[in-house]
């Protein structure tokens, strides 16, 4: 049935399903002690309330986002508390639509594109997350918008959306290098620099600098500086600390999925702390740079791998972060040559790894048992499963450059 409907009807259906979930959530919140709505949504709403009173949104403890989000959610106070959720589910559905359009651009047939987009549109995970009032859908929509406009070669629009995405969340900053590298002669279509020997400094610079790259860097830098500068002028150093520095220097000793969790807890407040900071940072940086340089020609796949690495090797990892790379999975599916059984095995192990972690975590948090070592072991196991999954995906990936002679190249779907 899905395959007979066009993409707009599918999006409307997906939107309808999310609206039903929002309605259910409102009912549950009013009648039960355990709330459907995410704690973060109340944080956003409280911050929006402060903004409507002319105060800083950072008066609300644990608000660690851009003030723009609080500003966007002021209708929560003036119109209805449900406004924010409506905005997030709409962004979620738009993200699904963008996935479909990106796949069509790459030459994937309509049927497969609709199926891949449906993996997101009718997936209970993003449906639940957005209807509970989580703002990840906004960043995901901006990232997909960036990919779309890069593929249609609207460099300025892509750069603007990209800078906005980075303003909202730090993780898209890892796409800067692949985006820059992608805009080479294959992207611009200009072969002028290819055969020249590098004799002078200007020749050397000429290899790296071209109009597209200038547009990319200039537009994204200007957008980011304007957005961040505006927020800094309004809210000062507190904005920088809460929105960016907190996430960059975050050392949460509370248990979480990160492979480094127990190691950081045990070395907190000791002379090893700084060494640990470096040890945890180094693999992330090395891997991100290497992957950027090797895989940039297939930008969606490169971004997927970047994000997967960022999350898997991060000092703190919560289930919210998984959406960051899951949102790029539908877009890379056609480039993966893989048997269904393998895909099912991977998905099963991924869920199993989380379940095996949640078990000792439950006993620690809700039964007060000392299961720290088991949580650590489960964290190592989940990390190993994630590494295995990534390697399988890398092995299954057929790497086809997106651009050649200035034009988008369609995927070869016949192998």
């Amino acid at each position: 049935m899905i395959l007979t409907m066009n993409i707009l009807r599918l999006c409307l259906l997906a939107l309808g399903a999310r609206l039903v979930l929002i309605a259910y959530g409102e009912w549950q919140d009013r009648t039960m002690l355990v709330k459907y709505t995410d704690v973060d949504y109340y944080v956003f709403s409280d911050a929006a309330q402060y903004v409507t009173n002319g105060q800083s949104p950072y008066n609300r403890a644990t608000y660690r986002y851009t003030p723009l989000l609080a500003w966007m959610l002021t209708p929560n106070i003036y119109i209805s508390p449900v406004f924010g959720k409506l905005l997030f589910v709409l962004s979620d559905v738009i993200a699904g639509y963008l996935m479909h359009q990106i796949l069509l651009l790459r030459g994937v047939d309509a049927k497969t594109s609709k199926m891949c987009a449906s993996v997101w549109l009718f997936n209970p995970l993003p449906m639940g997350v957005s209807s509970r009032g989580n703002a990840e859908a906004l960043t995901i929509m901006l990232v997909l918008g960036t990919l779309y406009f890069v593929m249609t070669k609207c460099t300025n629009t892509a750069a603007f959306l990209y800078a906005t995405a980075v303003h909202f969340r730090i993780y898209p900053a890892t796409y800067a290098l692949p985006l820059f590298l992608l805009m080479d002669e294959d992207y611009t279509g200009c072969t002028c620099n290819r055969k020249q020997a590098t004799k002078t400094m200007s020749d050397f610079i000429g290899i790296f600098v071209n109009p597209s790259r200038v547009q990319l860097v200039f537009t994204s830098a200007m957008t980011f500086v304007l957005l961040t500068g505006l927020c800094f002028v309004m809210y000062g150093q507190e904005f920088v600390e809460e929105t960016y520095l907190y996430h960059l220097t975050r050392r949460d000793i509370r248990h979480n999925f990160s492979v480094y969790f127990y190691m950081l807890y045990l070395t907190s407040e000791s002379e090893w702390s700084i060494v640990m900071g470096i040890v945890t940072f180094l693999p992330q940086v090395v891997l991100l740079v290497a992957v950027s340089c090797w895989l940039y020609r297939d930008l969606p796949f490169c971004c997927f791998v970047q994000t997967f690495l960022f999350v898997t090797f991060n000092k703190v990892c919560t289930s919210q972060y998984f959406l960051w790379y899951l949102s790029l999975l539908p877009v890379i599916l056609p480039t993966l040559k893989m048997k269904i059984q393998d895909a099912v095995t991977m998905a099963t192990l991924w869920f199993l790894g989380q379940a095996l972690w949640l078990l000792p975590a439950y006993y620690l948090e809700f039964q007060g048992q000392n299961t720290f070592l088991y949580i650590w072991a489960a964290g190592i196991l989940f990390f190993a499963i994630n590494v295995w999954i990534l390697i399988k995906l890398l092995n299954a990936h057929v790497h086809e450059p997106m651009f050649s002679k200035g034009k988008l190249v369609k995927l070869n779907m016949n192998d």
Partner: protein
Amino acid sequence: MQPSFGGQFEIFSTRRTSVRGMTWLTSACLCAALLLIHNSAGLKNPGATDHAAELTTSLLEFIVKTGGRENRIQHTVCPSLSAVRVNRTAQNQGFHRDVVTEVTLPVAMATLPVPCRLLLVETVPAGMYVDLHQVTFRTDFGGPQVLALRDIDVEQAAHQSPHHKLLLYSPLQQGPKGFTWRVVLPVHLRYHRWAGEGEDTSATVKLEGPDVLMHCEGDRPVTTPCEESRLFPAPCYAESQEVCLWQLLNGKAEPLLFQVPLGQQTHAGLVITGTTVAAALGSWLILAAARRASRVSRREGAKNKEE
């Protein structure tokens, strides 16, 4: 969506009523007098009065911060009561607990001569915190209204946190054994610093019994005169800036003890080695796979470039 309590009072404080000079002066004098009384009574009973003086200071600071000092203080009358029973239990296990407090006024006073209200003052130790937003949700389901005398950082570890005081307001219920007051407060244990070699693998957090205060409306001198050293100023209601005098009742509950599991330094060797090996091995394998993946290029594209 209701703002947090801290935000609510900041909003009120920006719309202050005009200062009534004499009323403020009277209130300020009374508060100063209370502090003096508590301090001088310390000559007889130093330990109890440290606590009383600390409580008065915290309450006064809070009243000033929330703009209640311009209001007239409402006095209380003090019916004589024999010992009040305070019973405390903790429900659930782990880091998230419910602390149940039951206050029973003795049967002999089954009918109080004047309308009265109760207020619990909790001193939450550093190893624990209360999430005010969670408490606000529970108010709709019969939970108490809670005021925090200071901002509470819900994310900080135990050794980096101070203790804090809470005011719990809840209506009095009439039961078969007289007046009872049952309050359930959700608390959360904080993460503690790891246990060094040879240290206990769990930490103990001690929650002392609350101070039970009562405010009764009426004209003096209907009942016995109030003992000044047992009077404390506090907001009359959770939502108001009016200040009432509250009488501290006899009756103290036994402290509750909570065990918090700790990470252990004896694991450090294994954990650091294991994590480093896993991260290094994982990185190496991924680098190799990514390098292989980047070499697979489009067959037709490769042919085009060769032409």
